[in-house]
């Protein structure tokens, strides 16, 4: 079983070698003549104002949290999906209860406004 992963490892090796090679090659052959203006962060020609890494909208954090919940749901449903036909109606009811519970959670977050981006 595990030997079927060997080609993946080799492909990964080739890909990484290629990625590193590209960076190194272009580093070796390309010129590098820095000037202060060239190294400034690009802000459409204006002098950069303030630091980039400041606080940003909490919405992005919220989406990440929601993603974990629903991605886990997907993975659970995925394993059910593979054996769905042999489990029959009993498995269907069980999965339905699982989906309903998560849907209630989703309705809650929807009503709370976690999905609004305005």
């Amino acid at each position, binding site marked *: 079983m595990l030997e*079927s*992963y060997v080609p993946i490892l080799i492909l*990964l090796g080739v890909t990484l070698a290629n990625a590193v090679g*590209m960076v190194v*090659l272009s580093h070796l052959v390309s010129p590098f003549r820095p000037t202060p203006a060239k190294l400034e962060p*690009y802000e459409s020609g204006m002098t950069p104002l303030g630091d*980039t*890494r400041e606080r940003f909208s909490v919405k992005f954090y919220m989406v990440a949290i929601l*993603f974990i919940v629903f991605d886990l749901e997907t993975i659970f449903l995925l394993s059910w999906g593979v054996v769905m036909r042999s489990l029959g109606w009993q498995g269907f009811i069980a999965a339905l209860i699982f989906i309903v519970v998560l849907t209630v959670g989703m309705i809650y977050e929807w009503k709370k406004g976690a999905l609004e*981006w305005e």
Partner: protein
Amino acid sequence: MHDMGALTGAPWLIAMLIKVLVVFFGTMVVVALLTLMERKVSAWMQDRLGPNRVGPGGLLQPAADGLKNILKEETYPAHASKLFFVLAPMLAIGPALITFAVIPFAAPLPTPWGLVDMIVADLPIGILYILAITSLGIYGIVMAGWASNNKYSFLGGLRAAAQMVSYEVSLGLSLIPIFFLAGNVTLTQIVWSQQQELGWWYAFPLGLSFLFFVISAFAETNRLPFDVAEAESELVTGYHTEYSSMKFSMFFIAEYSNMVTASALMATLFLGGWDIPFFTFDNMRVIAPGIVEGAEPAWWKTLLTFGAFGIKTLFFIFLFMWVRWTVPRFRYDQIMHLGWKVLLPSALAYVTFMAAAILTLDTLGVPFDFWYGLILTGVNLVPTVLFLVLIDRDRVIGGTAPAARRSGPLPQGITATRRPNADANVERENQEA
């Protein structure tokens, strides 16, 4: 049942190395040609000529671009985190190029040393591998956005992360009905199910799944209409604003190889992979090393099925470019709305509906063959039509801003579409011209 002999020892190793290199360099060459194709297709759709100076019909343009990008000056912006800045393009390009490994691209090839599967690695986890690896692509983009220390890059990286994460859920959910029918997560089994067991390409009995998958794949690859991570009219070029030279090229290669993989995946999951429709001479699968069920393998069958796979993949790649010049970019709140409030609930409801439909067919004792697929295709029309009718296009992805909608209908005498003196303006412009 045909025993073609299992491949072992040195021939196995050589065949595997050849397959790895063919897939790797094949993807790279296809990506290079795609950059040309994109420009040619864009030109064609806008009634221009496109690149036609370098080589015959502009064929050498990708080589010229590649050479130029290697020789161009590199910049490392001040205050950038240099380690992550260099690491980001590598992280973007890595997952993009290794995802293809589990996609079968032709019928198995018989050789004097044994049977060669036309797939780099037939992993037992199949699609799970694809889901796992493609989600790694987010890291490259977020890291690029954060390391650049540029506000445009930062916003682009954040947007990309939230968007890819949101659509990954509906992408995963749209795959579940496939497992109902295939009963396995390996892509070889999914192809076999479509060509022989059910005899229907899943695009028909699982039409809505197909639609959800295509939409999510567009969002996952950051292509228009979902390219807010780059959005050149708002964020310059988003997360790779500060990148120059080869590192910029690497993000480009990553984007295009993601596109190739997504297209190949759509072809494999919903259009039968390398299956040639209406013929049974290519319906075969490897059940154990060297042992084939169904039709007998032959070199010309491998060649033909590879052609079929190529045509299907190319169709989806063309679809990517076609959509790019057809649909305008979504606003960010529209993207989130579509992902969380439309696709996610619809996909969940669809999964439940199809599970019930399939179990009902099983309970009624319908044999799993052509008629099963036909009935399912008919049943599938119900949610598909319902979805397309119920989806209120103006509210879901429409042009009205949320604030404008809340304020109610426009006062009398003012219409949203036409300014009162629009005709007069046109008249005046014509006279000036």
